[in-house]
């Protein structure tokens, strides 16, 4: 069977821009949702036709992920149409995972039932905090009460549920974070994304932070918060299968695993990225980030790809390792070689590999995979440039 494929669908609109967010999201007074929906379907059809022409028609579809922006602002009918098209063009695996990101505001919660009916079987809620002051700081439009109500509603509707929290906020003490996280874990999701607040260039926070408006926990403090996060999650049976993602065994996000395992994925919508194995090799492509420009291009040409790049063996090995070492399961050397054309010994600096194994930053799993230990994961961004060739 050919390798399954993952599909990402980007909805680039938000009701408001959050001060920490550097994603491709845009605030528009009016959105012609039907027209954008049609363009997404057109881009999907274009990619399907291309794969067909490559002799890769009928690759099984393992997951769909509606991300954004705020995809819970999409009309449920648009969601339904895209799912229908996707599962028609690519035969879905029986356990296909279809996730949609939603905000816990009341307007969006009121649509969750319809979204479920459209075929979405996993909801991912942008809760971000269970503390009203923190939610205010993060520029969120909901309060903690609404967040809990949204989680309860979603739990009743979707077979699988995840939500996001942002920690290591200004002045946040480890004990406070533990308490907040425990309240979150008690809300019985099977998956959590727990992100340390980072300052991304070009965001409002970046400006304020540079001005000294607030400080963030750093160094030892940040490490202590991270450690506490893993401990609390483990008490509720959620394991850190990726740097910032915690799940009960079997409840991992299959779609996101496709990225980290460096599989093929299709990305449609403004600014979406994709990596597809075509005849010429593994091809990375990116689409126009501006929603209106993207729309115009899709309507004119069937797609809005602005840049493609055929990835060299070194590029592929680097990407596979920088993603794969984020996972607890690590990287399978055989898979690395098949995917990149380079053996592990060719892809990394052997002396640095030995040093990292020696220091217990990296380890060989019983299955013969190379994985980062807790200590290694903590310093992964420093480890990778040293390790990779």
């Amino acid at each position, binding site marked *: 069977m050919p390798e399954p494929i993952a599909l*990402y669908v980007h909805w680039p609109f938000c009701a408001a821009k959050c001060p920490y967010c550097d994603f*491709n999201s845009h605030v528009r007074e009016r959105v012609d949702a039907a027209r954008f929906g049609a363009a997404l379907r057109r881009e999907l059809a274009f990619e399907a036709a291309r794969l067909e022409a490559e002799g890769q028609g009928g690759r099984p579809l393992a997951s769909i992920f509606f991300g954004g922006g705020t995809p819970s602002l999409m009309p449920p009918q648009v969601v339904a149409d895209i799912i229908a098209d996707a599962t028609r063009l690519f035969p879905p695996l029986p356990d296909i995972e279809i996730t949609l990101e939603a905000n816990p505001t009341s307007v969006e919660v009121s649509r969750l039932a319809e979204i479920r009916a459209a075929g979405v079987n996993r909801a991912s809620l942008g809760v971000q905090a269970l503390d009203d002051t923190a939610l205010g700081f993060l520029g969120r439009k909901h309060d903690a009460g609404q967040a809990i109500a949204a989680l309860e509603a979603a739990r009743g509707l979707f077979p699988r549920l995840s939500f996001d929290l942002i920690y290591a906020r200004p002045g946040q003490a480890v004990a406070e974070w533990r308490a907040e996280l425990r309240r979150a874990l008690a809300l019985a999701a099977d998956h959590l994304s727990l*992100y*340390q*607040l*980072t300052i991304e260039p070009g965001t409002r926070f970046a400006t304020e932070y540079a001005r000294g408006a607030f400080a963030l926990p*750093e*160094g*030892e403090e*940040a*490490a202590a918060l*991270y450690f506490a996060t893993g401990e609390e999650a483990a008490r509720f049976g959620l394991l850190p299968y990726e*740097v*910032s993602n915690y799940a009960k065994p079997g409840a991992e996000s299959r779609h*996101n695993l*496709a*990225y980290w395992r460096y599989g093929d*994925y299709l*990305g449609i919508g403004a*600014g*979406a*990225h*994709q*990596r597809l194995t075509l005849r010429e090799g593994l091809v*990375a492509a*990116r689409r126009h980030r501006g929603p209106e420009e993207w729309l115009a291009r899709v309507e004119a040409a069937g797609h809005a790809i602005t840049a493609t*790049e055929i990835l060299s063996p070194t*590029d592929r090995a*680097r*990407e596979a390792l*920088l*993603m794969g070492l*984020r996972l607890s399961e690590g990287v399978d050397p055989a898979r690395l070689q098949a995917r990149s054309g380079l053996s592990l010994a060719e892809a990394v600096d052997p*002396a*640095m590999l030995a*040093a990292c194994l020696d*220091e217990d*930053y990296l380890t060989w799993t019983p299955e013969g995979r190379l994985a980062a230990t807790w200590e290694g*994961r*903590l*310093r*992964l*961004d*420093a*480890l*990778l*440039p*040293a390790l*990779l060739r």
Partner: protein
Amino acid sequence: MTNTPLSRIRNFSIIAHIDHGKSTLADRLIQATGSVALRDMKEQMLDSMELEQERGITIKAASVRLDYKAKDGNDYVLNLMDTPGHVDFAYEVSRSLAACEGSLLVVDASQGVEAQTLANVYQAIDANHEIVPVLNKIDLPAAEPERVKQQIEDVIGLDASEAVEISAKSGLNIEGVLEAIVHRLPAPQGDPDAPLKALLVDSWYDPYLGVIILIRVKDGTIRKGQKIRFMAEGTTQTVDSVGVFRPKMTPVDYLGPGEMGYLNAAIKTVAETNVGDTITDDRNPAAEPLAGFKPSIPVVWCGLYPVDADDFEKLRDSLGKLRLNDASFHFEAESSAALGFGFRCGFLGLLHLEIIQERLSREFDLDLIATAPSVVYKLTTNKGEAIDLHNPADMPDPTLIEKIEEPWIKATIMVPDEHLGSILTLCSERRGQQVELTYVGNRAMAVYRLPLNEVVFDFYDRLKSVSRGYASFDYVMDGYDEGDLVKISILVNNEPVDALSFMAHRTQAERRGRSICEKLKELIPRQLFKIPIQAAIGGRVIARETISAMSKDVTAKCYGGDISRKRKLLEKQKEGKKRMRQFGKVEIPQSAFIAALKMDS
């Protein structure tokens, strides 16, 4: 103008502690004799280098010819020889003094005798100078001429009862100084018919004329077209021109005995002209050269490295250009694992080092890093071989060394009584041996023998800070003594950093080793791995610090859209590593070593 009888010539220099008014007095003398039109007058006429003017120090010798009609109605030629005042240039000073018969000893009437006054006055006495004390700044409210006169008599042993009291700044009693030069300083002696003997006082490079040589004629005459011989160098040249400084270079037909002036010939570098050499007539040479010639030898060495590796060739050119004008400093290429390619440079002393470094950055716009200065150690191997060690990194295995000798100095420190205690503590910490301790009023004069090694390492700064800036200091070299000296290596991640190794006395080793380790711990950013930093003597670690591994550095969010961005970032980081120095599995930014070395100076 050059057939002045010997009896109407006076050759003199001015000796003074820094800031006691030497340059101002020189300016006034030039002005008072009308040697420079008022409109051409500027301050510190004789210090032509920007650095000399700014810092009030004289680096190169210079002379100026003053025409003075004295009160006795006669016309005199007064040749003022401006000499470097610093001990680094002690040999150059002694040659400049040898060109004169007398000195004005300028002392600040409120501050009194300082360490540098003493060092220089003793040199003048050694040169058999007649010395006229001059009390400057007499118009200041704090001036105490009687006390200072007494001090001059007590400390130096000179009769100061007829000291000339002046204010160079306001021009008060400059006439008195001129009359004292005429009547109290001796006229030169010399034989116009003897074979030529002229002292090479100094030389410098002029971009238009080539090398200009400052000379003092003792016997015979020197003229344009004459074939001359440098007796020590053994070379011959034909004189292109001779002249005097007024203070502009003014050609004359010839220079006779007792005269000071310049000569210029087809000489390309000052390295061919040794200060102290005797110039004679090639066809009618003098039988004996003038006494006292010795080549100047660097006593302090350090590595100079460009901060930007691309500046290496520029540094080589710049050092070459500076050497055109200063043959006393030496350089040779060397390389260091921590700092890349650079030069090992030898200097006459710490001020000389500082001056060269400053000129490189100022005149050649070079960003430099200097390793800790090292003195020259004399090693004797077990086999009886003698080695001069200029660079601690070159120190052979200590088991092969029979003995190590280090240079000592004799230092004179003058300090107000209330700071004496801390000065004595400092000197004894630095292995000083007290030679003499005397009081002059409320000022103490301590004479110590000190290892030069202890002085090149932050001694001035400590001296300044423990005396709140009131101590003055000067020294002369005082031979070599055997010492219990060890090489201390600094190891980063168990690998020695050659640029940071240094020699120290065994008793100082641990303290200094620890201080460098602590400093590096502050400066080296945390990394993926913990980094041990050690100071070691041979295989024995004497101090150790550990830089912990960085605590957390991992991207929180990384999904499908982030891969390309992360890969590009990785490529950039790998590029950045080229500026790092590899120590086993850790990479230290060169900037950390640079900062460590900068903190030293």
